[in-house]
């Protein structure tokens, strides 16, 4: 499931959400431009769900059947999520008869490549204001 949130870098072409219709229009634009084939859920205008889950721009959470949080990542890596889900499913479904399983907790830092050029291109896609605001903010990381 993809949850559409808000525009972290609003611009002239992809504006901030001044009403829910604008939010829906941006979500449709994203679906059509990026080609998202998964079902898309749109959060409410004030970001109730997004903020409850941490409010970051590119998170992934995996929720077990019944509602227990099994995985949280502040940044989405498809390979990392797929690897986790494969292990998770294998442990639960493919265990030998009679073998009991129990959970344990892990925590680690992962590293990702930061493609500043692609990031700036996405800001430009949103509009010149998004690019200007990024430079004015004076940050070094892409967020």
């Amino acid at each position: 499931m993809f949850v559409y949130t808000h525009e972290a870098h609003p611009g002239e072409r992809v504006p901030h959400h001044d009403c829910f219709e604008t939010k829906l229009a941006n979500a449709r634009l994203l679906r059509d431009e990026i080609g998202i084939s998964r079902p898309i859920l749109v959060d409410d205008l004030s970001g109730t769900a997004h903020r409850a889950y941490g409010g970051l721009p590119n998170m992934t959470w995996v929720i077990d059947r019944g509602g227990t949080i099994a995985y949280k990542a502040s940044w989405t890596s498809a390979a990392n999520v797929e690897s986790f889900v494969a292990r998770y499913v294998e442990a639960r479904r493919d265990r030998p008869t009679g073998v009991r399983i129990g959970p344990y907790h892990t925590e680690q830092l992962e590293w990702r490549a930061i493609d500043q050029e692609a990031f700036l291109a996405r800001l430009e896609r949103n509009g010149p204001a998004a690019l200007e605001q990024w430079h004015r903010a004076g940050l070094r990381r892409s967020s």
Partner: protein
Amino acid sequence: MADDGYNYVDFAEHVAHDGLAGFDRFADRMHAGSRAPSFPLTRLDDGTTTELDQLWRRTPTVLEFGSFT
């Protein structure tokens, strides 16, 4: 819930008002093993409302949050 600047117009102003603090707080909240909160969301394809907990009632669910940027 009030907007509280969630739909800001200016990213630089958002940063100046501690808008990126969530990055530092993320690791300290809602840990694996705890209960996932549920909210009603709107399906983009047909405009109907879906409660998140209905998704994971029968099967595990991957939730990716995102936008253009």
